[in-house]
């Protein structure tokens, strides 16, 4: 609770940026050594090879990742650079997608050529962004956030119920059915109608965007945005045109979102109201925050992590790998003394056998089954207790106990921690094999939420961000 010493700490922040410490230090130093231009080149090279290594579905996922990366970069301008909390960003994305869909399908009907529709879409979305920035003159911080949040809700409602508005003759947005049969993008007769083509288009656009953003960041506007973010009042008094800068940030961010939306519509060959719900906004924010707010490479890495992880977690085998390695990693991190680490591992093994013996002694064989077919089923057979009946009830209690145990582990120290660790880990494996592994879809969401919480607790500035001091 101390603000004592803050000034000194702020003073030293510049130093800290140059001398990295912490566990990502080696990676970051290497990162810094390579010049941005080369970094981008390497990135493009790696990304370009990607479609050749994976299946079509992989390319489709890659497109999702790239779209998310673009969105994260756009949001980065508004939130990371200009410091404006915009919770309605997904509406710009939706607006761009719908606009493009309306002018490129049988909805009206209209089939504008790409070289007309894309610039119009981008410009229109930028205009919308500028409009939305107007309230930001009066609203600061959280109130702006709230207003933009409502705007996002309003957008979805309008799109879904447009045809029911009084006085509306033609149904522009397709209502809950959305718009289908959207034309693919095409330039000079070359149609972007396969996943691979769209993928490379996105790579090109992303590269262009990164280069532009890099230059903007170093320019006067970039510096002005930083000033705006750090201390709006001071910036204003230094004659920075605060309102115009806010408008610019919103407009540019919106333009990028609009472009991403248009491409999204072209790839999905359709748009639906449910594509633009709050959940997606949260995904974009998660990508941005996890990667590190304010950092371009951070936004990209964040997008990759956030978009890929749920896909990986779809398959129970992969999720199993991650789970067990995660547990091991947790142990390694939390228990620094080798003696305690060994004690925990030995304890868990022993606990498992004892537990199983006791259970088999009390209840008869019929309620127990054999291990199922997940990755480790074979290895753990004979040690882990697998339930045949009453799975739901028992695993529910076990699940709650695991959570309590984890919290207990965080709170305690020393040998108490070891003691609580043992049953917690056993129960975690128990719940995993008996319930979670059987419901990959729910587990995915559980792990995602957990990862967000843990990441924030452990490293709130994200992977590539710098620790910021809130000057209040």
């Amino acid at each position, binding site marked *: 609770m101390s603000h004592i010493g803050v000034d000194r700490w702020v003073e030293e922040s510049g130093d800290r940026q140059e001398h990295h410490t912490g*566990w990502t230090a080696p990676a970051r130093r290497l990162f810094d050594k390579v010049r941005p231009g080369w970094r981008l080149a390497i990135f493009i090279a790696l990304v370009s090879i990607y479609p050749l290594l994976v299946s079509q579905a992989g390319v*489709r996922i890659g497109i999702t990742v790239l779209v998310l990366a673009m969105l994260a970069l756009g949001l980065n301008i508004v939130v990371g650079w200009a410091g404006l909390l915009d919770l309605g960003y997904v509406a710009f994305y939706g607006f761009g997608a719908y606009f493009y869909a309306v002018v490129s399908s049988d909805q009206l009907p209209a089939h504008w050529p790409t070289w007309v529709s894309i610039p119009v879409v981008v410009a229109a979305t930028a205009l919308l962004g500028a409009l939305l920035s107007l309230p930001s003159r009066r609203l600061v911080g959280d109130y702006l956030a709230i207003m933009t949040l409502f705007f996002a809700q309003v957008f979805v409602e309008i799109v879904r119920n447009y045809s029911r508005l009084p006085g509306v003759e033609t149904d522009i947005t397709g209502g809950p059915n959305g718009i289908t049969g959207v034309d693919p993008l095409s330039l000079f007769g070359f149609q972007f109608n396969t996943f691979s083509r769209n993928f490379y288009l996105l790579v090109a656009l992303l590269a262009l965007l990164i280069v532009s953003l890099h230059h903007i960041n170093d320019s006067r506007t970039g510096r002005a945005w930083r000033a705006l973010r750090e201390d709006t009042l001071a910036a204003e008094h230094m004659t920075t045109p605060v309102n115009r800068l806010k408008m610019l940030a919103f407009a540019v961010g919106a333009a990028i979102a609009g472009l991403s939306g248009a491409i999204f519509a072209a790839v999905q060959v359709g748009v639906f109201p449910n594509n633009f719900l709050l959940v997606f906004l949260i995904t974009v924010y998660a990508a941005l925050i996890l990667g590190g707010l304010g950092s371009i490479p951070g936004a990209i890495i964040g997008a990759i992590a956030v978009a890929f992880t749920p896909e990986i977690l779809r398959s129970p085998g*992969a999720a199993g790998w*991650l789970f067990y390695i995660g547990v091991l990693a947790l142990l390694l991190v939390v228990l620094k003394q080798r003696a305690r680490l060994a004690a925990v591992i030995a304890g868990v093994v022993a606990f498992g056998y004892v537990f199983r013996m006791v259970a088999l002694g009390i209840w008869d064989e019929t309620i127990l089954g054999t291990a199922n077919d997940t990755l480790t089923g074979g290895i753990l057979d004979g040690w882990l207790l697998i339930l045949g009946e009453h799975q739901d009830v028992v695993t529910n209690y076990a699940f709650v106990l695991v959570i309590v145990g984890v919290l207990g582990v965080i709170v305690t120290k020393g040998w108490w921690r070891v003691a609580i660790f043992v049953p917690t880990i056993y129960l975690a494996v128990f719940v995993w094999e008996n319930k979670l592994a059987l419901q990959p879809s729910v587990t995915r969401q559980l792990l995602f939420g957990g990862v967000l919480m843990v990441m924030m607790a452990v490293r709130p500035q994200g992977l590539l961000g710098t620790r910021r001091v809130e000057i209040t």
Partner: protein
Amino acid sequence: MRRRSIWRLVATLLVFALVAAACGEDTGGDTTTTDGGGDPTTTASPDTTMADMTTTTGAQPVDVCEATVGFMGPITGPVAFIGEVQLNWFNYALDTWNEEMGYDFQMVEGDNQFDTAQSATLAQQFLDDSAMLAAVGPAGSDQVDAAGAVYEAGDPNFTFISPSSTRSGIAAQYTGMFRTVPTDDDQGPTTADFLIAQGAQNVFMVDDQSSYSTGLADSVEENLTAADVTVTRESVSQDVTDFSALVGTIADDTDFVYLPWQVAANGQIFANQMAEQSKEAVIFGSDGMDSEDFTEAGSFIAAFAPDIAFVEGSESLLDGYLEQYESTNTFGPPVYAAARVIFEAIDSVCQTGATPDRASVQAEVANTDQADSILGSPISFTEDGDLAEGRFFIFQIEEDGSKTLVE
């Protein structure tokens, strides 16, 4: 010093894990045998009366017949109660089929969370999996659009049967699409005719702003107004849980309240609040309201697979299902029907001695001709892929919650 090396080890392990996982992904997703919450060893043994239900032409299982079938549905997310039941019925169909025939068909589950973007990705994943011959799902009409576009562009021979998409005309758009539910074109007129026959003069209609609901409501409204019945049309979004204000606007001379909703529990809330405000109109619910969640005595339900307890021979199936899984709703049985259609089609191909592939399976599916099914009606498909003889039953709910067939 040690700390840093441990971190390096941890980081390496995590990278290794991710790489291993990602490499595993390349083959298009791992296949899993079905466990679905039930015990792996003691699967429910199907009743011998199963033979009545299946219409395998008395075929004997072939020695070698392997297949992978996919399931795409909203297993988690906003309508998880639909997806869960659908998944359970799919697994049940698979387990009973494998047990019955001695086969070892595999399944892959895909959770699209009722989202179109994920449906498209999953559709592509299914296509990439060369072992997968067909799939059941997706559930919603807009997801059918998204997935259908991918299937159509990637492999029109890939069969996908939707067990709950009812928007008219979709099946015609996608080559590989079939469905085991009748469309709004059937349910709308059936409902309207019934209401007119009951002497309705004034009908209050609320849709829930979903694609399913608006389509159905439009159809019924059209038919009713053509017969000079006054229709008051309202709509609420699915996330509204309090309808008191809306109920208050129901005029006293309203005969029927039509609720083509997907969430039956909301229907019950509506009914309760109508009772609170002494509104005497009778509720008529669409097939989405056919569920244990809606038990308002005196109400009517249009259903295509009515509480399959009514269908002779389905009882044993239902019992077997309920033994393993907690509860069911209207979205379940069509999944069973769809899965069986696929399995039998694959089996037919195996019978001829050929290795089943997507094209041959689709041909067999198109020729499906089951005289009897869990849905209480024969299953065969039109050229477009719609059910040729889908019909709707109309039920009335009794005081004790049971349903009696009215039409």
